[in-house]
């Protein structure tokens, strides 16, 4: 078995070359880089979360108590940028680095040096983003959508944000090129495209989305930069430009971006649910096609972020119909996951709990998305807390719980140690309850007409805001359990089995020991016989 082969070079682990510090700067090993991505994302997740807690503290009761409105606006802006570009995307890339080579039987990523670079250019980006709070004029305070002309009023902090976005975009593009090349070229014999685990499939499609849209964002923010400093008028009506054009360009990036934030999580869930149902994923091929359909549709729905701009009726109708269509492939995915559980043999370890939480809560987010897709109804909900509730329902239980499930699921494989199941269950249940206390009332606030991105509110919104703030602090606390559990696992977890999960069937579980050796496949594995049938 390949198992024994892997042990033969297990001694490699600490043997080579540089000391720990040189190693983290110069490493080209996909597992090292994956871990760095994951720790970076974990750190950013807590920083972004802390920002959100300042916002919620300000909104605990009406009136201004904690921060000035301009700081509130900056925190709103940077919270979003940190969570999207600093936490969720790097975390997915971290898992891609760890898992894709192992799952397709490759020795490493296709471009190991570029892989190192795509991690390290995120550090100056993060420094620019955080440093922008310290410069005259403060951090960008226009919301993460950076709409002009408001963004042109910002100080140098806005320019730093723009450069940070450039760097993060370059990092994402390099990561994507690496992932696409790895998947298309380095699959071991027998690992045909239609036998790949869903995580590889969703990442392949996500990588194409990134390559298609990141340059668009970079172009948009560069135009902002030249409007701000070099007298151009791309978005300035006085010079013949149009602020609305920025919205079109931004959301042409921005809508595929929300699928970038969720498709890899679909992949994760599509691997974890079958593992704990102990039967193959239901409708594997339809899952692949549904993912591709969602990706393609994501390019023609951006206008649903702009129903209040004043587009003609035909524009509103087109974007409404196109957006509603997304419910079809997304529905197929939900049904397939449930059908996977149907007639299975279910157990409910922590990763499975997070996946079930994902299913329920993400679907609620999908329903509120359907409500918002209706251009007429969107008029009364646009830019209200309903929208805040909607995207936190799809991003927190979607992206974050997907990632959390992945951490619990693969940590035994990465570290060779088992996490604390009791703590994991506490983490899930407190998160699940706190999340709903935080965000469910925000639907009500939005329906009642409370605008988002305001530091203070009219008295009729008090009760739900207070409840939401209490939930938010509980939710923040529950993530400390997560951190504690991860640290505890690494320091003193019990030894994990090579195939920790009975129903797991991808190559990293079936062909490799836990922990995985530093170099996985020194010779090309033959997956023709051993690969699981779908």
């Amino acid at each position, binding site marked *: 078995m390949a198992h024994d082969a892997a042990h033969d070079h297990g001694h490699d682990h600490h043997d080579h070359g540089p000391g720990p510090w040189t190693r983290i700067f110069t490493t080209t090993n996909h597992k090292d880089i994956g871990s760095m991505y994951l720790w970076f994302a974990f750190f950013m997740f807590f920083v972004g979360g802390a920002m959100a807690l300042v916002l919620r503290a300000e909104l605990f009761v*009406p*009136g*201004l108590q904690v921060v000035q409105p301009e700081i509130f606006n900056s925190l*709103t802006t940077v919270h979003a940028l940190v969570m999207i570009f600093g936490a969720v995307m790097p975390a997915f890339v971290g898992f891609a680095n760890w898992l894709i080579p192992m799952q397709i039987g490759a020795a490493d990523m296709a471009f190991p040096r570029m892989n190192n670079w795509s991690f390290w250019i995120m550090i100056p980006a993060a420094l620019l983003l955080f440093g922008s709070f310290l*410069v005259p*004029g*403060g951090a960008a305070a*226009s*919301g993460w959508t950076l709409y002009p*002309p*408001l963004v042109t*009023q910002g100080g140098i902090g806005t320019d730093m944000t723009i450069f940070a976005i450039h760097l993060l975009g370059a990092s994402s593009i390099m990561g994507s090129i690496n992932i696409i090349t790895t998947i298309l070229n380095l699959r071991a014999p027998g690992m045909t495209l239609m036998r790949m685990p869903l995580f590889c499939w969703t990442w392949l499609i996500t990588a194409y989305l990134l390559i298609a849209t990141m340059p668009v964002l970079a172009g948009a923010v560069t135009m902002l930069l030249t409007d701000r400093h070099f007298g151009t008028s791309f978005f300035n009506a006085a010079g013949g430009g*149009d*602020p*609305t054009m920025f919205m079109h360009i931004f959301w042409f990036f921005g809508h595929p971006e929300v699928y970038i934030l969720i498709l890899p999580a679909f992949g994760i869930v599509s691997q974890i649910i079958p593992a704990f*149902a*102990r*039967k193959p994923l239901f*409708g594997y091929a339809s899952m692949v096609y549904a993912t591709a359909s969602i990706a393609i549709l994501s390019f023609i729905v951006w206008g649903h972020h702009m129903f*209040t*701009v*004043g587009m003609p009726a035909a524009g509103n*109708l087109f974007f409404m*119909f196109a957006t*509603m269509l997304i*419910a*079809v492939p997304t*529905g*197929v995915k939900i049904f397939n996951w449930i059908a996977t*559980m*149907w*007639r*299975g*043999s*279910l*157990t409910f370890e922590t990763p499975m709990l997070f996946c*079930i939480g994902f299913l329920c809560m993400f679907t609620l987010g999908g*329903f509120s998305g*359907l*409500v918002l897709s*209706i*251009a*007429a*109804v969107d008029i*009364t909900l*646009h830019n209200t807390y309903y929208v805040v509730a909607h995207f936190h329902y799809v991003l927190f239980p979607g992206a974050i719980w997907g990632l959390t499930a992945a951490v619990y699921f693969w940590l035994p494989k990465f570290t060779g140690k088992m996490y604390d199941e009791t703590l994991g*269950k506490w983490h899930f*249940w407190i998160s*699940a309850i706190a999340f709903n206390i935080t965000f469910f009332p925000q639907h*009500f606030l939005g*329906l*009642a*007409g409370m*605008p988002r*991105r*305001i530091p*203070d509110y*009219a008295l009729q919104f008090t*009760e739900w805001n207070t*409840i939401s703030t209490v939930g938010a602090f509980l939710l923040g606390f529950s993530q400390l359990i997560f951190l504690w559990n991860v640290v505890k696992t690494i320091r003193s977890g019990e030894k994990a089995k090579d195939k920790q999960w009975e129903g797991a069937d991808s190559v990293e579980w079936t062909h490799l020991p836990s922990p995985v050796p530093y170099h996985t496949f020194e010779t090309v594995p033959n997956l023709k016989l051993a690969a699981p049938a779908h």
Partner: protein
Amino acid sequence: MKNKTLIERVFLAFTALCMALPALASYDVNIPPPATPISAQIYGLHMYILWICVVIFVIVFGAMFYSIFKFRKSQGAKADVNFHESTLIEIIWTVIPFIILIAIAIPAARTVLDMKDASHPDVTIKVTAFQWGWRYDYSADDVGFYSYMKTPWSQIGQPGIEATEKKNPDYLLEVDNEMVVPVNKRVRLLVTSVDVIHGWYVPQLGINQYGIPGFIKDAWFKADKTGVFKGQCSQICGKLHGYMPITVRVVSEADYAKWLADAKTKWSTKAAPAAAAVPAEDASKQYSLDELKAMGEKVYAANCAACHQPNGKGTPPAFPPLAGSKIVTGEAAKQIDIVLNGKAGTAMQPFARLSNTDLAAVITYTKNAFGNATGKAVQPADIKAARR
């Protein structure tokens, strides 16, 4: 067994919470009562889709929770590994959602078309947004006026400084001058902005329309009942985005005529079309330093204190202090220029809309407050001369 009791406990607690909350009376959970045919359609559409979603949720997650309870390994469930592919099922659950979507799309499209048909207005009002307030121009009647939030900062407070006054029931939603429109008439709004993007949002009237600088977009409503309808700016527009309320008073046709006659005397734009934005006054009048300071303190509190703070110390770096500022204590001309025309690239907006007297007063006040003891006064004539 341990897992099950944990699940049960949490489930019970959560259910109890869900049931307890809506039972309390003051918690709004839905769209406020509609006041126009369009907002009534919006309300109906939302309820229609909400119930469809509830039914789907119950069916789909009924199936999931059935699986969770029925197909547990701990209850001896064996996995049916062959149940992982069915073209027929895939087709069914692609087609059924599609049909449901069509059932939603048809009424929704009808509402969108109605909403976008702003033709044949009875009253047309130009809505001009700015940082941070609104201007309403009834152009056909030569009436135009500003509408600002009326809630004083003493009710809002500041970080570290508690509000000194009790909050009104209409806290943050009260304005000095309301938009007044007649009932059962088609009112067309031409929405624009002079600085950044704002959103004119009054949910009960079914309107949420961005004001985009350099462009005019339209929206319309026909209120079918009289009353006061409130809203706020919906699009983030800088520091005081949260302090840009909107109030629309819908009145009978007779009351509207009365209001309009009164408005014409107060806010006529006919007399001085070139300087429409500047209130009538005697710009040649000379005031004493104390008079200007007293008047200026009020103007400062209403227009400047939010950013530069009541004590003139500002919140640097975004909002620089006026106390000890070189511009404030130096040449009057430079300060007048900044106050009149704003400062490009910063949040300092042009205040040319204020009267010469108010501007002279507030500039004089800043030159003689917060420890700035220049003893200098600026007269309305100086402002008039500096206007471009």
